[in-house]
């Protein structure tokens, strides 16, 4: 399988040894537990995802080969780059911190993903796409309910193939939505409108039903 999977330490089973993994670590203890597992992990791609404040406080990462960092402020960027030398790097940037200049600074990162927190931020999408094109990057987005963007449109489709978000409790308002299980919406910041037109979303649904891994691309 040439795709990485995201998981918590408790979800790891021996069958995953030969796969590219990224452990979600919210605390130092979780990171240490992930690092312990990664010591015996069989795949070359041994990743962790954590907040930037936790990341900069960590000692040198020897076992970890890939990091996914949720950026909390831009001041720590240089520290992050320094620590990520010779490692795969993915940056998750809140829309409030995003700018074309920031994207330029993040040249070293393999992926930059912009995370959204409310409906108003979507007004800036076009400018964001322009910045991504300027720096020859594919625009990746996170935390936008799929009903708020046209997921049939490639530029709005990013998070649908990013990964399946497990354990997200859906609000009642999402009931009946065809894309509910593929959507990262956590009930905050947006008013969802269930997508029910199966014909309209046939292409997306065909793609999603064709793959059944816990990761996509």
């Amino acid at each position, binding site marked *: *399988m*040439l*795709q*990485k999977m995201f998981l918590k330490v408790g979800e790891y089973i021996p069958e995953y040894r030969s796969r*590219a993994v990224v452990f979600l670590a919210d605390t130092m203890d979780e990171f240490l537990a992930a690092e312990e597992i990664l010591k015996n992990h069989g*795949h*070359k*791609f041994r990743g962790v995802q954590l907040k930037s404040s936790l990341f900069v406080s960590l000692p040198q990462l020897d076992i970890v*080969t*890939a990091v996914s960092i949720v950026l909390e402020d831009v001041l720590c960027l240089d520290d992050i780059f320094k620590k990520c030398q010779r490692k*795969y790097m993915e940056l998750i940037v809140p829309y409030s911190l995003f700018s074309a200049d920031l994207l330029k600074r993040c040249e070293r990162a*393999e*992926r930059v993903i912009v995370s959204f927190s409310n409906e108003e931020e979507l007004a800036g999408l076009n400018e964001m*796409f322009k910045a*991504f*094109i300027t720096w*020859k*990057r*594919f*625009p990746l987005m996170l935390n936008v309910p799929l009903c708020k963007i046209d997921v*049939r*449109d*490639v*530029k709005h*489709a990013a998070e649908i*193939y990013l990964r399946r978000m497990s354990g997200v409790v859906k609000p009642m308002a999402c009931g009946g939505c065809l894309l509910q299980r593929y959507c990262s919406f956590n009930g905050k910041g947006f008013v969802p409108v269930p997508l029910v037109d199966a014909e309209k979303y046939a*292409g*997306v649904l*065909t*793609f999603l039903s*064709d*793959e059944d891994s816990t990761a996509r*691309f």
Partner: protein
Amino acid sequence: MELKEFSFGNRVGYETNKNVELQVLSYIMLSRPDVVAFSNYIWSSEMAQDFARAIKQIDSRITVVLGGVEVDKNHLKSGVDFVITGEGEIALTELVDFLQGKCTIEDVSNVICVREGVVLENKKKVVQSLDTIPFPYRFSDVKHFDAVRIETSRGCVYNCNFCYYAQPEFRNFSLGYLRENLAYLFSEFSFRNLTFLDANFNTNAVRMFEILDMVEENVKKCGKKIEVHCELRPELIDAQMVGRMSGYSFRIRVELGFQSSNAIVLKLANRPTNLVRVKEALALLDKSSIAYKIDLMYGLPGDTFFSFLQSMQFLLRHALKQRKVVAHHFMVLNNTTFGMQEMVRFTPNTSSMILKTQTQDTFELYLTKLFVEMVNSELEWY
């Protein structure tokens, strides 16, 4: 008659000082040829047309001919005297006869020109016996190559709408011709790579192995260490074929045209594909010593971002040895079925990239390219 062949070579970017142009034009100016002919393909056509104009400015007496799969009557522009469509071997010889006053223009096959203000489009002629074509390396002064390339057939038994290969019809060089010329190639030249240019080398497996056996014989006789490169139709690959190909003393690298796994896209492209057979072929190749490359094409009619993602998934799951996604932007080629349809391309009358289709816009096509690059950069870490 004196012949001189030039190649534009690999040129990257826009060259302000126009060194290649000045070199070629200076040579033409000094040698004052009667005829300058250009073979046109996607990367050279626009440059050839610029040259045609420039040559006429240097010496209006020079006859300029454009040929190749790319050209048609739309290329009869300023500076171009004759356009040769289809195969050039017969036509160019006949055209030179005409220019020497040995026949009339009506006797020249495959040629398009303007006579008394009227566009004259002559009869088409196909080289029926490929063995009548002299082996190109017999005329080469250079004896050392990284790669030598040889045709064992022309045409293609398939007829994909984006491709020109099938035209005008499928024909083979005789095994005798190949035996004689392969022996010549091995005895007279040094090279590391032998590339068979056929569209689908495994169309006839028995014949393919007869040719590969000839290569083996020559490799052993001359003690050369080479790699053989060929294009195969994946559905025609089976265990026996992989087993036998793996048994040669030379390394084989194959290219597999795939383009898409989407039924609608493949139907519109007139490219019926048996996905089960493709999977089986990839599984066999993955277990063998044969190196392979399997390609996708994005921007084909009927394709969408999601259907392309499915094609990518197909390769990521089944082309395990490749470990990256090779995807090309669909180029609309002149004189292909798609080329003759209304398609929005970058340069209207020249083979060039598709700009948008009924299902995808320009931005989406660019994002597809960026997406492939992003996935490939990640796969480097795997």
